[in-house]
């Protein structure tokens, strides 16, 4: 654990780490738009960093969205701007025909906090700014403590969305609750309304400002983050659009996370990449939801911390460990 927090502060101290991240996101954004542009019939190659093979040659080298380096005739090369409106539109609509769910197996979590650092890296957050956090839980004095990763529950009856005055936070057709920081007025009513404490507010300038300058806002990544607005877990909807598992899910070394589509009744483990029937997984392991009595209808399920794979070891007081 101490090692992890050291890692985190390391990230914090070296903005170079973040700038590489943002560059990767930058390409990704281009990729998203590239798909749209290609569908429009224009044979354009996306990319922003290119170099000429030889001075005076009529070819330029371009990095494509799928990470290939190709050469394009100079005449055919066209600069395209990533369109904010397009990102906003697709981000608000969501993926048709899907209902995303997450299953968290508490028996496997040993508080490695890799999910958290992966998430914070992707979303340009500080070490204590959480889209997902791992909590030390204990139901009562006589029961055993356990670690519980806690992302946004992406409720089907989201109290946070209901109270938003400006439609800045909203639920998509695929169940994901997103936040539009181009719209948010920073009233923090959603923070007050969320029983899971799943939202964060940018009280000050976000961690990454300079490197994100000029990057069009991607609502599915919530980058660039913005001062005075809300941020929250997005189920990595930018990755889902590419058919990839969320950042936290793929980063977990212990197989804690399953992610999938309720409509397909299937979830895939982020560590082992094994796919299971959602209904069976929940049935066999007695899956449950967090505080279902509140009527929020979460899209995140938990499998009880039974037959645990590790010794519970709380290295430090979690209250003070940052």
């Amino acid at each position: 654990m101490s090692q992890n927090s050291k890692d985190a502060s390391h990230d914090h101290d070296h903005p170079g780490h973040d700038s590489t991240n943002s560059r990767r996101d930058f390409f990704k954004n281009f990729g998203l738009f590239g798909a749209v542009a290609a569908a429009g019939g224009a044979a354009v190659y996306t990319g922003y960093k290119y170099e000429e093979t030889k001075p005076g040659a009529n070819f330029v080298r371009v990095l494509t969205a799928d990470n290939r380096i190709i050469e394009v005739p100079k005449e055919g090369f066209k600069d395209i701007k990533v369109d904010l409106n397009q990102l906003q539109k697709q981000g608000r609509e969501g993926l048709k025909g899907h209902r995303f769910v997450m299953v968290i197996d508490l028996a496997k979590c040993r508080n490695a906090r890799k999910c958290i650092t992966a998430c914070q890296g992707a979303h340009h957050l500080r070490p204590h700014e959480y889209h997902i956090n791992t909590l030390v839980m204990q139901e009562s004095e006589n029961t055993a403590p356990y670690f519980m990763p806690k992302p946004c529950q992406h409720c089907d009856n989201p109290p946070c969305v209901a109270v938003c005055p400006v439609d800045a936070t909203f639920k998509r057709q695929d169940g994901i609750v997103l936040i539009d920081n181009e719209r948010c007025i920073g009233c923090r009513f959603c923070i007050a309304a969320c029983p899971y404490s799943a939202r964060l507010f940018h009280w000050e300038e976000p961690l990454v400002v300079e490197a994100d300058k000029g990057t069009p806002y991607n609502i599915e990544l919530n980058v660039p983050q913005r001062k005075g607005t809300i941020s929250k877990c997005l189920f990595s909807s930018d990755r889902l659009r590419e058919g990839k598992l969320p950042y936290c899910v793929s980063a977990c070394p212990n197989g804690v996370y399953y992610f999938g589509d309720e409509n397909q009744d299937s979830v895939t483990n982020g560590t082992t990449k094994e796919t299971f029937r959602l209904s069976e997984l929940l049935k066999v392991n007695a899956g449950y939801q967090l505080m279902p009595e509140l009527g929020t209808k979460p899209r995140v399920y938990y499998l009880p911390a039974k037959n645990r794979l590790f010794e519970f070891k709380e290295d430090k007081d979690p209250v003070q460990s940052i």
Partner: protein
Amino acid sequence: MKRYFILLIIVLFSMQLSAQEWVVAPAEAALKSPFAFTDSTRKAGEVIYVANCKSCHGDPGKNNVIQLVPIPPDAASVKMQANTDGALHSKLIQGRGAMPSFKNTLSSTDLWRVISFMRGFNPKYVQEVAVPTIGSASAQNVSIKLNWNKTSGQVEALLTSLKENIAQPVAGAEVKLFAKRFFGNLPIDEARKSDALGKVSFNFPKDLPGDSIGNVQLVVKLTDEVAFGEASAEANLTVGVPTNRPALTDQRSMWGVLEKSPVWLIFAYVLAVLTAWGFIAYVVLQIRAIYRAGSKE
């Protein structure tokens, strides 16, 4: 002193745990890499190691492993290096306790690359490369066809291979069936061997959701790559339950966008605002009337 005791307890505890054998079948322990370990395989292995193993096993030889119970051994340690290549390969596939199985995450080739990286820290290691067995198998260039047998409710795969341009059934080959899902392939039924006619029948669940008309994209794969080479087939069969669930945002609700707000709420809000501001407007008109009445005087 107290620390010493805790350490002692941990050591004893982990010894007891490690006393439980991590069993590797002799045939698997004897397995050898199909390729020779070189600098390039070590380099490729390092990338995989850093991504998948380092978080627990640390950097090889630096003894910076994570303190779990049992303690994950350093990759360069004597304990680790005492394993045969095949045993390492097997353990990576199996996993145990907190160590995950890499069966589905890493290909066999990638596993051998990781092992090649680990062996780079053992100067005494001498590699034995496996004798290529490919070619000696009973069939090569197997092709598979998938079918839906409505009467039995089973999905059938037919395995054939071309011998002198004539399709011959492939018998005794193990295949696995998967349904393609958004993030991965869902195993259906168990791995089964083809019969003498090259046929494999899979029981298919009756309640698996398909697309809007019940189509499910199926994938079938040969498991024994060594004996039969690589072969797989895909087919889109109407074997699932038609799934047409509406978008979650279809209903009117308190959390919906403005256009999806409850009708009673729109009605109540508009009525209240119009009433209040209607009276206010009326009062303002009265002020105008007062002004006019005064102007006449």
